[in-house]
């Protein structure tokens, strides 16, 4: 008896499993069956993951979409192998069967990719097949023929207007403010997040000629001296815990200090501050502004790696992301700075990014010099008493 019951139970389970499988297949296939699959690779903090999940969900559910997009996301600072290393490995191994169909990356980081994988890593794009491209106001400064910018992002200063009514704007004012308000300024260690990195870059490149900003030549490393000296000079005046200056890890680490009112002023990504403000984690009194010269920002672009994928398949999704609808998703999900005329976008959030103009960004793109900078910082700034 008992055995019979078991057999019946097993039969029912198998049957229902089979039916469930066939149902779900029927649900997702149909018209989608012949659409090509495009795997999008992206990297960054968690908000970028949220952005693409949202955008892809909207895109895939449209019957007129010409492809099915899938997201592969690499969390920054998770100790995982970076996207540039993976692409370089596949490229140098001569692979042509990868699923690196499309990547989304900071325009300023592309030099690092080319550095590792060679000049022909990205495929030149046929812009005539991306009709919305003509609405894009900025053209990327790097590999213009291979990339489509879809949003801008920049590091700004975030401060609590209740405690700092008049925040410092220039280098001299900032220097004076930090020394006059010991323990109230913090930046995250540059190896763990771009906000701290941009602040360190700001200190290092402030007095250098413009050509240095986009050079990967190691001769500029020797020119960083005065910048390092200033960072050493302000070290004792920064945020302290347990009687010692500490630098928080990750972009969120610095934001946490501002949220908990342990500091009053930090460099932070504009989109992260605005997101935290919108969901009420940062107090309403927190505001953002830009230093003079500006902390570095960049356009964020799509590019198609030369690794076997078919660029034609990706154009429709790229076109969607730079359409007013796609730009609205970027703006409302992560407060990304639009690349098209803001008046085309119908959203209440656009006022929040009104002051941040992509075309006025300071862009620093120094490829592998970033690693040299981080190593020097870890060995010479982090070790200060």
């Amino acid at each position, binding site marked *: 008896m008992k055995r019979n019951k078991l057999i019946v139970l097993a039969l029912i389970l198998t049957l229902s499993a089979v039916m469930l499988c066939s149902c779900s297949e029927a649900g997702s296939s149909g018209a989608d069956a012949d659409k090509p699959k495009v795997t999008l690779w992206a990297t960054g903090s968690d908000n970028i993951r949220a952005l693409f999940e949202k955008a892809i969900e909207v895109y895939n559910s449209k019957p007129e979409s010409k492809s099915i997009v899938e997201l592969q996301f690499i969390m920054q600072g998770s*100790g*995982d*192998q*970076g996207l540039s*290393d993976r692409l370089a490995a596949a490229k140098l191994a001569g692979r042509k069967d990868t699923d690196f169909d499309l990547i989304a990356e900071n325009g300023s980081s592309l030099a690092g990719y080319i550095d590792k994988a060679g000049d022909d890593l990205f495929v030149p794009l046929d812009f005539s097949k991306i009709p919305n491209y003509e609405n894009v106001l900025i053209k990327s400064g790097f590999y213009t023929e291979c990339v489509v910018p879809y949003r801008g992002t920049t590091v700004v200063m975030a401060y609590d207007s209740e405690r700092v009514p008049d925040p410092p704007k220039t280098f001299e004012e900032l220097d004076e403010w930090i020394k006059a308000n010991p323990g109230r300024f913090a930046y995250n*260690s540059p*190896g763990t997040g771009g906000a701290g990195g941009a602040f360190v870059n700001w200190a290092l490149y402030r007095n250098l000629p413009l050509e240095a900003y986009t050079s990967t030549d190691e001769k500029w490393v020797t020119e960083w001296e005065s910048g390092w000296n200033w960072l050493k000079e302000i070290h004792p005046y920064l945020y302290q*815990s*347990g*009687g*010692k200056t*500490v*630098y*928080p*890890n990750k972009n969120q680490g610095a934001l946490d200090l501002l949220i*908990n*009112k*342990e500091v009053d002023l930090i460099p932070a990504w504009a989109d992260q501050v605005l997101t935290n403000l919108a969901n009420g984690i940062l107090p309403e009194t927190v505001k953002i502004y830009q230093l003079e010269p500006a902390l570095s920002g960049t356009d964020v672009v799509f590019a198609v790696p030369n690794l076997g994928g078919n660029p034609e398949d990706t154009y429709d999704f790229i076109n969607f992301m730079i359409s007013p609808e796609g730009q609205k998703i970027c703006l409302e999900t992560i407060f990304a700075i639009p690349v098209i005329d803001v008046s085309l976008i119908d959203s209440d959030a656009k006022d929040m990014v009104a002051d941040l103009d992509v075309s006025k960004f300071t862009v620093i793109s120094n490829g592998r010099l970033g*690693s040299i900078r*981080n*190593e020097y910082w*870890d*060995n010479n700034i*982090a*070790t200060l008493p």
Partner: protein
Amino acid sequence: MEKRTWKTNLFIAAMIAPSLILTMGIIIYPIINTIVTSFRSSDGSGFSLEYYKFIFTDKIAVNNITYTMGIVIVTVMGSIVISYLLALYLRFTDSKISKFIGTMYLLPRFIPQLVAVYAMITVIRDTGLLNRISRLFGKDFRPGLMYNAKGITLMNLWFNIPFATMIIVASLSAIPDSVIESARDVGAKKLNVFFKMILPLSFKDVMIAMTFVFMSNVSAFTTPYVIGGNNPIMLGVYLRKQFSEYANYELAAALSVVMFLFSSVSAVIYIYTNLKEKEWEKV
């Protein structure tokens, strides 16, 4: 004993094969690969000891090693002493409180590590729970536990005490009441019973608990990464920096080998205590 047929042998081989292949592929091969990489010389010409020399002479690297060892030793000692006392209480007290603690003490083992670390941070940070409570009383108490060794050690104790207690409780439960009662009957004092009977009988398991706590903390990453400061840093964080920030793969490999050796020291102690027991059983 029955003689094994070729069929049984084939069956045994088939049972072992998957795990053997997996072990070779994802453990043995990477280990060999790492060891070879760690001896490469920086000019690419051949093999040298330069990365090992660097690890044991560079000021920052040596500082990181002593920092890690300091935290690990304090963690091992602290968690063993506290766990032993807790285990003694749980084993020899029969009250409602001890029963309650007995069911609750394993709870931390079920909380994901990252959740626990962030929970701890909200309590111990300078504007955390402790600070807020102190402000109710008009004081401004700043624990100063974040971004340094104290915070990491506190978190490690939180993780390791339940684990060590679990092992030691199991060991103490294996000592029959009759053994202790008979010793008391012939007039042994409480302290005598402890040092002459309970401690020797549970010694082996204490050593095992120590080796496990040691090994899991030498290579710790999450806690020191989130709670720790910028310098010195624990070896796990240092290793990650070398690997994914500076792309210094040879040095990262050499560091892994060194961490592996540190862990093996405790593995040797573990095996030694296990073997010794077997000899003692023979008599």
